[in-house]
C-alpha cells in the first residue's frame, strides 16, 4: 500500500482515488474508502450521503471551494488535486474549506506537489500530503517545519504575528 504524510507522520494510504483520468458522473462507486470526483458527488449525493464517513471528494485545481461548499462537513476527506506545482489555486481552496466551510476532516493535497511547498500547504489547512512516487517522505517531513514563526494568520495559526508580538 502506498504511503503518505498525515498529521506529521508517515502512514499507509488506505484510500482509493476514483476518476483521475476522467469518468462518468454516474459511475458505480466501489465499496471501501473512495475519493470521488466532485461531479460524482454532485450527481449521486443522495445515495452517497449514507456512506459519507467513508467517502472523500476530490477537487481539481479549477474547481473552487464554494462548489463543494457546506457539503464538505459531511465528508471524511476532501482532496485537492495539483496538476502542476506552479498552479497555486489549491492553496486558496484549502483555506476556504477550512475557514469558510468549516471542514475539519482530512484535507489532502495530491498530484504534482513537492517538499518545498509543504510548509505553505500545511499553513493553508492541508494535513495530509500524497507526494509523487519516489519521494523520500522521511526527508520531506522535516519541511513541514521549515519556519518556526510566521507573520500571517492562517489555518495553523489563527492570529497574525502583530496580535501575538510581545
Amino acid at each position, binding site marked *: 500500500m502506498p504511503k503518505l504524510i498525515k498529521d506529521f507522520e508517515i502512514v499507509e494510504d488506505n484510500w482509493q482515488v476514483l476518476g483521475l483520468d476522467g469518468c462518468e458522473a454516474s459511475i458505480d462507486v466501489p465499496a471501501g474508502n473512495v475519493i470521488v470526483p466532485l461531479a460524482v458527488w454532485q450527481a449521486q449525493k443522495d445515495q452517497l450521503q449514507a456512506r459519507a464517513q467513508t467517502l472523500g471528494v476530490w477537487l481539481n485545481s479549477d474547481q473552487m471551494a464554494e462548489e463543494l461548499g457546506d457539503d464538505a462537513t459531511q465528508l471524511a476527506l476532501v482532496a485537492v488535486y495539483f496538476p502542476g506545482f506552479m498552479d497555486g*489555486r489549491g492553496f486558496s481552496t484549502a483555506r476556504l474549506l477550512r475557514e469558510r466551510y468549516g471542514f475539519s476532516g482530512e484535507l489532502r493535497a495530491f498530484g504534482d506537489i513537492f517538499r518545498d511547498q509543504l510548509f505553505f500547504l500545511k499553513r493553508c489547512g492541508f494535513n495530509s500530503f500524497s507526494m509523487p512516487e519516489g519521494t523520500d517522505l522521511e526527508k520531506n517531513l522535516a519541511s513541514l517545519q521549515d519556519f518556526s514563526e510566521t*507573520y500571517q494568520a492562517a489555518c495553523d495559526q489563527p492570529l497574525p504575528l502583530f496580535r501575538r508580538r510581545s
Partner: protein
Amino acid sequence: MYQYDDYDRKIISDRVTQFRNQTERYLAGELTEEQFLPLRLQNGLYIQRLAPMLRVNVPYGMLSARQLRKLAHIARHYDKGYCHVSTRQNIQFNWPELEEVPDILAELAEVEMHATQSSGNCIRNVTSDQFAGVSSDEIVDPRPYCEIIRQWSSFHPEFAFLPRKFKIAVTGAASDRAAVQVHDIGLEVVKNQAGDIGFRVLVGGGLGRTPVIGSLINEFLPEQHLLSYLEAILRVYNQFGRRDNKYKARIKILVKAMGAEAFAAKVNAEFEHLRDGAITLTAEEVARVARFFPQPSYVSVDESAVESSVQQLAEQNPAFGKWLKRNVRAHKQAGYAAVTLSLKPTGVAPGDVTDAQLDAIADLAESFSFGEVRTTHEQNIVLADVRKDQLFDLWQAAKKQGFATPNIGTLTDLICCPGGDFCSLANAKSIPIAEAIQRQFDNLDYLYDLGDLDLNISGCMNACGHHHVGHIGILGVDKKGQEFYQVQLGGNAGSDAALGSVLGPAFTADVMPQIIQTLIDVYVAKRVEGERFIDTYRRIGIAPFKEQVYAQAD
C-alpha cells in the same frame, strides 16, 4: 527606519537555512531544474545571460548606512565590485556564484535585509515615494503601511504560487512619485473629511506587453481593513487569474476581462467574509510600526539667513548653483532639503554604483542625513534630510564621488533597464543607447533649457525601463536577429499617468541620438513659454513629431 525584533530575525534566518538546504539539494541533483526555478526566484535569483543575477529587496527604498556598507562588502567580495539600482528601488548583483548565494543571504540577514520574493509569481517588494516623510505635499507618511504590507506579504502561504508576479506601490502624497497607477495594486493613503486615514485602491495597472492604467475599485478603504482587503484581492486573483498563458496572467488582464466593476464586486464579496477578522489592523500595531519612522531630530535653522548664504555660494560657484537647481528639493522642515545623488553621469550604466561609491554614500548619509538614504525608481539615491547650511559641503563631497551630475529630472537622468548586455529576456541592448543619448545632450545649459523630461528605455517589452510612461519612451525590439528601437511619445508616470503612443517604424541604434535630437527640436520650435515637453506634446499631438522624424529619415 524599521528595526527587526526577535520574530523578524527568526523568520529571516529560517529562510536563509531553508534556501541553503534547497541550493544544496539542487546542486546534489535532488531538486529538478524546474522545481528549483520558483524557489530560487523567490529568493531573488535569476539565471542571466552571463551569470546569475541576485535581486535584493530594498523595502520601499529605505537603506541605512550599515546596510549600504554591507552591500558594498557583497559587491566587493561576491561580485565584480558594483551593483545596480533597479527601477523598483531594489539592488541587483550581476555576478554572484550560485553556490555562494546562501552566504550572501546570510550576510544580508545580519543587516536585516533579504531577497525574499524579489522575483517569481508572488507578491514582490512593496515600493513607495522616495520623498516619503519629508515632502510638503504629503498627506500621510506611507512607510508604516509599506512595512505592514511587507510583513503580511512575506512568506504568505496562500499567495506563493500566483498566476504571475504581483507588485504593490504605496504613496501618501498629493503628487504621485511611486507610479501607483501602473502597479498591480496601487494604494494612495488619504484622509477623509472626518480626518480618518484610509486608502484609495487602484488595481490592474501595469506595464509589460499590455500596458494598462489601474482602475479605482475603492474610493476609501478604512485603515484597519488594509490587509483583509488586500487578501480579498489576492484571493480573487489567485483563483480566477489566467494560468493557461503567461502573457495573459497578470491581474490587469483579469480586471479587463471581468470589467473593473465586476472585479470590484467580487473583491467586495470576498472582503465581506474577511472583514473584521483577525487580520484587521489594530491601532496598536499601526502605532508600533509608525514609531520606527519618527521625525528625525531636526535642529532649528534660521531659514532666511541660511537661504541667503546658500544663494551667495551659488553665485560664486555656478556649478553649485546648477546642482541646487536640479538635485536639491524643497523639504517640509524649515532649514532642510532633500538631495538626490545622481547615478546618471554619462558613461556609466544608469543606476550602477561601485562598492567604493556605496561606502561613500554610507559616509554621506552619516555626515549629512541621519544615516539613512532612499533608492528611487528613477535609479538614483536620495539623502532625505540635509541641513541647508551643509548643502555646499555635501555638494563638494558628492562631486568627488561622481554623484553631483546636476541632471535630476532632465533628459539625461534617464531610466534604463540592464538590457541585452546582461538580461536574458532582452531583445536589444539599452545601456549603449542611453550613453549615446547622454553624449548627444552633454551641454548642461541646453539641457536645463529643455527642462523636466522623462526619457525611459527598455530593452524588451517586459518594460523594466518603464518606456510606456516616459515622455519619450524607447523600446528595444528584435527583427530577424537585428536590434531596432521603437520610439513612443506622451507617456507619463505621475498623478496624471498616461501611456505613450508609438511614433512609427523602429530605428537602428546608430541613428537614435539624432532621432531624439529631432524630437527635441520639434518641441523647442513649437513650445510656448513655460511648457514642458509633455505639455507641448499634449497640445500639438504626435503628428508634428512624426512628420519631422520620418521626413528626415526619407
